[in-house]
């Protein structure tokens, strides 16, 4: 499923009940982490629910796995992963999630209340992207 499809699906649903049900459905498709994955290293600090994001770096792209103990948040993670997975670091840094969430009618999840987890999640993903870019720059400097 592409992000365009997701935006279409969400904007087609015109009440919050259906949007949230759909979010939960998307969340249900995410595999649950086991205890070895739910560790401090992958935890996104946030007050209200626990969120874990694990990055995977390949030569040209990054991808992520995520989980939470709250089911709507799992849905949000599913959307966030759809947005960011298998993109290059630069692509990740260029993405405007606020615009995407706005289009989906999920504005409340992009308020600056970082405790809802969504923005800190995105911050962390962008942090990994930045890190991978810097490492590459470092590498090209050393090897050239």
């Amino acid at each position, binding site marked *: 499923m592409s992000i365009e499809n997701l935006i279409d699906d969400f904007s087609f649903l015109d009440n919050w009940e259906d949007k*949230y049900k759909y979010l939960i459905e998307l969340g249900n498709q995410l595999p649950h982490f086991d205890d070895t994955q739910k560790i401090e290293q992958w935890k996104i600090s946030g007050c*209200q629910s626990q969120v874990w994001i694990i990055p995977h770096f390949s030569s040209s792209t990054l991808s992520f796995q995520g989980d939470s103990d709250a089911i709507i948040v799992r849905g949000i993670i599913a959307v966030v992963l759809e947005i960011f997975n298998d993109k290059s670091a630069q692509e990740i840094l260029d993405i405007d999630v606020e615009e995407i969430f706005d289009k989906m009618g999920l504005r409340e999840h992009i308020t600056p209340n970082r405790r809802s987890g969504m923005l800190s999640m995105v911050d962390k993903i962008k942090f990994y992207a930045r890190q991978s870019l810097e490492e590459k720059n470092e590498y090209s400097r050393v090897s050239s």
Partner: protein
Amino acid sequence: MFDAHIVRKDFPILNRLIDGKKNIYMDTAASAQKPLVLLNRLEKAYLEEYANVHRGSYWLSEVATENYEKARQIAAKFVNAESPDSIIFTRSATEGINLVAATYGLATLHEGDEVLLSRAEHHANLVTWQQTALKTGAKIVYFDLDDCGNFVWENFEKALSSQTKIVAVTAMSNVLGSIFPVERICKAAHNIGAKVLIDACQFAVHKKIDVQKFDCDFLAFSGHKVYGPTGIGVLYGKYDLLKEMPPYQYGGDMIEQVSYEKTTFALPPARFEAGTPAIVQAIGLSASLEYMMQFNFDDIEQYEAELIDYTTKRLLDISGLKLFGTAKEKGGVFSFAIEGIHPQDLAFILAKEGVAIRTGHFCAQPLVNALGYNSLARASLGIYTTKEDVDDFIVALQKAKNFFTNEM
């Protein structure tokens, strides 16, 4: 007689719609909404009576100073202090507690001394003393409440020792609602020579503070929880103690004489109010405190006791709901969990219904963890909360619960 329906009308924000829905504000324990008299007072202070205090010898500064010092008198009346000189304006309860820890605490605590806290303290009280203990070599000792959140006298008494130098406790838990027997605590602590700091943040919203009756040495609360502005808090201290305490911060307004080599400090309260204070916030707070004092606290308490019973019953009717904090003496906060549903999921749905509740660990993480959770939901009452609000909250809660039960 006290009527919350009439009181509501003083709080314009309660009439605004939230995304088209009625505003059901059940998060007063985090911060209270503001009465119109406060907003009018703030406006008047800025529009007609504003200048810096304690400085200029011109009319505006004189009026501002007079209003600021009158606010101190009103705060003194609110807590029934012996004198306004015992009232220090702070930024918040958090700052009040930090002030005591950084001055009295650092100056008097030594290796081997004990600071006694309950297991239900807010981080403002817990972390502050924990860190002060690290600096001084003092030890933190905790006493337990029972499973319902009742204060258990034997637990407290057992934890009190000849090493106890400071007892720092909440008068009402922001998680469990439990009310502590402050007067008795002070008496027992004083008997062994310890000082007592009372965190009255939640208590102040629901019950009458009387520092002379309590005989506490320090007491702190925040303006924003007692229907006042943010950025202002009150710290009461016994004057004889304040007089002996070193300054908290340095700067203007807290000095007596300054030379290039040396400074002597002003007497309290000025000694503890370095720099330009939160002038208008203090004046605004005094309007809110006067607003509260026009009610008879006994009436408020009686109304609240009925509403607490009612809310408790309605909550317990929801199957799978677990309520934390059912102490015999409790104020209007209800921390709960619904089996199989994460509090944040609940709160998302409640928000859609116009209902504001708090979720998380409520800045009392060790307590919430000890209850077996990372996160709980909490609803809380204010003087404007009506039975209808509770009904709407319960309907929304039931709806939220069904939403998830049908989903899973």
